[in-house]
């Protein structure tokens, strides 16, 4: 079973081994623009006084991305932080705040968050955006489907104009799973 979830909701989600031990919590979700796929997570400690960890969780080490926890087989799947993202990429690749451009050169809005598919998929299914007048919905929030390979840097997300027509207001109603199939 896979469910759609916002990356903001993944933050602070516990990382739990199949043995039942909570070893960390999610900090950042890292995804690859070329594949439209989660490549891993940076981690933070679970305690009140703990900060970011030097370890990260590559996607290959994830058993299941669930609605309440990220399950891993064992703590040995954790790797050095650089295995998922290095400091330069972490600084320049923040998705939140990136502007959304159509391939026709029209500014459609600003990225508020990414939507990913849970379970064992880890696919980037779409984006939550604050729209501009160009979408006929000035300063409203909408969900846009992704389309597999993402044309994206930390500054700008470029999407085909046809995808902008498929924006919906509600994640529950969003048909983002079909975004890569068309």
């Amino acid at each position, binding site marked *: 079973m896979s469910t759609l979830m916002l*990356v*903001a909701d993944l*933050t*602070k989600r516990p990382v739990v081994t199949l043995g039942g031990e909570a070893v960390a*919590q*999610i*900090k*950042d*979700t*890292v*995804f*690859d*623009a*070329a*594949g439209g*796929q989660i*490549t*891993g997570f*940076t981690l*933070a*400690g679970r305690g*009140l*006084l*703990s*900060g*970011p960890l030097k370890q990260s969780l*590559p*996607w*290959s*080490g*994830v*058993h*299941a*991305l669930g609605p309440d926890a990220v399950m891993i*087989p064992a703590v040995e*799947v954790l*790797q050095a932080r650089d*295995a*998922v*993202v290095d400091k330069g*990429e*972490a600084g320049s*690749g*923040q*998705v*939140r705040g990136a502007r959304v451009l159509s391939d026709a050169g029209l500014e459609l809005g600003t990225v508020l*968050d*990414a939507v990913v598919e849970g*379970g*064992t*998929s*880890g696919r980037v299914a779409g984006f939550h955006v604050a729209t501009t007048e160009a979408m006929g919905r000035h300063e409203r929030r909408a969900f846009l489907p992704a389309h597999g390979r*993402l044309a*994206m*840097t*930390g500054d700008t997300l470029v999407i085909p104009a046809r995808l902008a027509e498929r924006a919906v207001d509600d994640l529950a109603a969003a048909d983002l799973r079909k975004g890569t199939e068309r």
Partner: protein
Amino acid sequence: MIWWMWLTAVLVALLLLAGAILGTQARRRGGGAIVVRRGRRGGRGGMR
């Protein structure tokens, strides 16, 4: 200042310090979405 004023000042200072530390750590634990431009170790799909 009398002794209880010193005590109050020290307690207030400790509370402010604790609040600042907790706030800073909570902010450092916060995260978001990061995009990278190339595939990295980890690849596609979860471990089955």
